[in-house]
């Protein structure tokens, strides 16, 4: 029993970290209307930007800010130059182009840093035992940062002008444009913030493990599955989806063994698309 409980806790922790890039992914989908698979490359880039900043003693929060800014700026650049011009032809060409951008970014990182594994130079501490459950102090810290980032995003969406404009634009672009919201500006903002969150996600996930040019590719399916499960376009859904995927991935280790972990993401996507195409909290099917 405690094994299951421990797996639940572990799943929630990894789910929280996964939620940050999942929010970014889903927010971009809501506004830009195509699944942006370049998040794999952007997450890697964010992780490396954060790594460089951390090595230059920017501190954790400072490094997260750097990861956000670099990933956001580069993600925005690729969106403007490569993806958005294709969206007019439909979501599919843009999605395919974004896969290519992801590969380009991954290999740019490889060009600069090589294939070597890198780890954030953080102290590794022994776990704290609460009853029969183990939690690592670092994981709690990382989780806390992820929660803070999420809070900031939700507050931004709820209370700021640009947040409201983004939600309006996602809900009904024509009506939003009639009301004087400039769709182009909102799209750029969504792209920057979304990609920035993906970059933060890459760094957060790399903090406890290690980073290399494939860091983003490894988590791409989990991010996508979280967003689809929660309902594409719904940030709250993405958080819920990420937690569910995180827990499901850990529990699957106990049931079928961890080599089948990747199947969890695919399985979740399959079930959602079959039974409830709009996802758990999505308002409509895209």
């Amino acid at each position: 029993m405690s094994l299951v409980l421990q797996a639940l806790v572990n799943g929630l922790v990894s789910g929280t970290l996964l939620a940050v890039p999942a929010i970014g992914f889903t927010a971009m989908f809501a506004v830009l209307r195509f699944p942006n698979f370049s998040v794999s490359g952007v997450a890697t880039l964010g992780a490396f930007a954060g790594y460089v900043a951390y090595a230059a003693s920017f501190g954790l929060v400072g490094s997260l800010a750097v990861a956000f800014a670099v990933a956001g700026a580069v993600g925005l650049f690729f969106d403007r130059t490569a993806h958005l011009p294709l969206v007019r032809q439909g979501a599919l060409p843009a999605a395919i182009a974004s896969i290519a951008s992801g590969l380009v970014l991954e290999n740019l990182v490889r060009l600069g840093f090589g294939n070597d594994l890198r780890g954030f130079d953080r102290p590794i501490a022994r776990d704290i035992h609460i009853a029969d459950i183990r939690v690592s102090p670092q994981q709690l810290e990382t989780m806390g940062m992820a929660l803070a980032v999420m809070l900031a995003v939700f507050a931004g969406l709820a209370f700021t002008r640009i947040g409201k404009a983004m939600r309006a634009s996602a809900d009904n672009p024509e009506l939003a444009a009639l009301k004087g919201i400039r769709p182009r500006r909102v799209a750029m903002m969504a792209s920057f913030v979304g990609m920035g969150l993906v970059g933060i996600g890459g760094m957060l996930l790399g903090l406890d493990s290690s980073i290399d040019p494939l860091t983003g590719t490894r988590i791409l399916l989990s991010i996508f599955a979280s967003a689809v499960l929660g309902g594409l376009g719904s940030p709250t859904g993405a958080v819920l989806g990420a937690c569910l995927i995180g827990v499901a991935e850990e529990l699957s280790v106990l049931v079928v063994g961890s080599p089948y972990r990747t199947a969890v993401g695919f399985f979740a996507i399959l079930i959602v698309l079959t039974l409830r195409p709009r996802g758990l909290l999505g308002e409509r099917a895209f």
Partner: protein
Amino acid sequence: MTRIAFGRRAALVSGVAAVAAPAILRAQAEPVKIATLTPLTGAGGPYGPVMAKVAASVVEEVNAAGGVLGRKVQLVSEDDQTNPDAGVRAARKLIDVDKVAAIMGTWASSVTTAVAPLCWESKTFLCTVSGADSITQLPHQGFLVRTQPNSTLQVARSGEFMLSLGARKIYTMIPQTPFTQTTFDLMGKLVAKAGGTHQGLVYDDKKTTYRTEVDQALRTNPDMIFAAGYTPDTVVLLKDIYRAGFKGKIIGFGYSINQKLVDQIGQPEVVEGVYTYSPSPDEGSTAYERVKKATGLARPDPYTCQVYDHASLVLMAMEQAKVATGVAIKDNIRKVSQGGGKAVDNAVDGLKAIASGQKVDYSGASGPCDFDDKGDIIDCKFRYEQIKGGKFTLVKIA
């Protein structure tokens, strides 16, 4: 300074002569093509580039000394990305487009398993450093040799070593590889024979955390954990084992638990006391010294040494056969690698001796390089090390 006049007429004459020369002569002038297919990226990324480099150095030396069969040698290097899909694509290119006679240096067992059928079907010779038993059991018709001891030999030696350290409750944590099942079977038998118990689990090597897996392992109260993964996943695994407060012993493969892993974990106490073992290159040998010089490394890894030997053996087998094809290498490689004769430790000396009609017996940087009928090496040493204060200290070579 003398200037050589090369007028239009001379050019015309030589051009005509070239066209008029028998086709066979022109074919002779074409370079002999061989290839490396090493992991320049992916989990094997730390090894592949040096492996390709050392093969290039052999080719360079041989070309400087006049080449093979009077022809220049051309080396084509491709990246298998430590990934069977990419490996197959690259092998297809090497076989169909470059038409190489031999492919050398496939590293991950999964890649070798995928690439091998393309090689034997196209009669291209394959030299590999992969350890999975299943590889030499493939119906390769002789078109494959490996310089890495197979996993049966590796696991048997590691198991004996663990038992010699007093371990009786061993838990193996391993990703899905072609040697996973062999490892479980063999460890089970070995440990049971010594009166101990062996358990284990297969994990996904792409996860970012192994907390749940470590919990499963620790619930069996093991006194030794065999961490049998590759470097990226083992970094995560060792951190999680440390966090969980495991007090027993840990052992892993030398290719996975290496200086890069220690640097990357960055905190010596996490890896303090961890044992590693790896097939050892023949460190005292002259060929090993040559590899050191060619790579500029103080301690070249076993795979680099093995690829040095691949390139040397392949070129010598061609010279021995007087033909530069995969079939010729298959039929002649054992004539230059074993069975007595003039002892040589590099391709240039070997090629000279063969050209003068001598029988040679190559011993290289990785060891004696003698192969059995299935393509496995017959003899090899192992090096056991322990990490102390972030440094690898030698326990023994045996």
